[in-house]
């Protein structure tokens, strides 16, 4: 038996002004799915962070005139999966450094905070990278343990 899923998809040009639309989109779905206020905020913030990374970095130096961000939300019986997808230059997930926050703060440097937040806020984070084709960050929040 296949699992019943509801899918919602958003396709937007890469502009920071669209972060608001992305947040409202995922927050509304998370709300309808029955997540608590606190978890709706966590999901909203994690997706904002992943989307900000795409908008700021994914297409840097690329000439493509199709610079879009896709946000795909899949509602499973036990979890909400949110994919943030682009077709930009991609990156090596192994090179992502999760900062040691105490050392990081001592050095008073900015940037890189988003990756740490995503990992802290969500139950699972996976990367699938095909530069120029499809780069995907999948973030999962389970319903039962929340």
């Amino acid at each position, binding site marked *: 038996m296949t699992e019943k899923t509801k899918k919602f998809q958003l396709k937007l040009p890469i502009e920071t*002004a669209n*972060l608001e639309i992305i*947040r409202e989109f995922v927050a509304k779905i998370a709300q309808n799915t029955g997540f608590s206020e606190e978890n709706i905020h966590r999901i909203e913030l994690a997706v904002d962070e992943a989307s900000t990374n795409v908008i700021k970095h994914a297409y840097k130096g690329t000439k493509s005139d199709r610079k879009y961000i896709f946000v795909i939300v899949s509602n499973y019986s036990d979890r909400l999966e949110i994919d943030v997808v682009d077709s930009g230059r991609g990156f090596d997930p192994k090179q992502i450094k999760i900062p040691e926050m105490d050392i990081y*703060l001592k050095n*008073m440097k900015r940037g890189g*905070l988003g990756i740490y*937040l995503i990992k*802290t806020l969500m139950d699972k984070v996976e990367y699938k990278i095909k530069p120029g084709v499809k780069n995907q960050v999948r973030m999962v929040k389970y319903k039962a343990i929340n």
Partner: protein
Amino acid sequence: MEKFEVFRKEMGTVRVLNIQGFLDAHTAPDFENELQKIIDEKSYRIIVNLDGLQYISSAGLGVFMGVIEEIRNNGGDLKICCAAPKVFKVFDLLGFPSLYEFYDGEEKALKKFGEK
């Protein structure tokens, strides 16, 4: 449309920035500009009042990180007050309370600067 607004006032030698609305990668540059204006005036005693701030992402937190070194190197400080629980939680997740002083009221922060 979600709004973001910055209001500035002067309390003796202290500059207070009141930020309201949604602070994300889209609105962070506005906040950064206002903060930078104060620093350019060589005022290094700053309170950021978050009363009225409904949302913050790491882009907003990055603004605080970007200026604190210069402020402290000049003998000043940036103190934060009046954060709603939802907003404070984001600062807390990233360990900011170990680097910045947080107050629940603007007056307490002013007092810490020696202003009434």
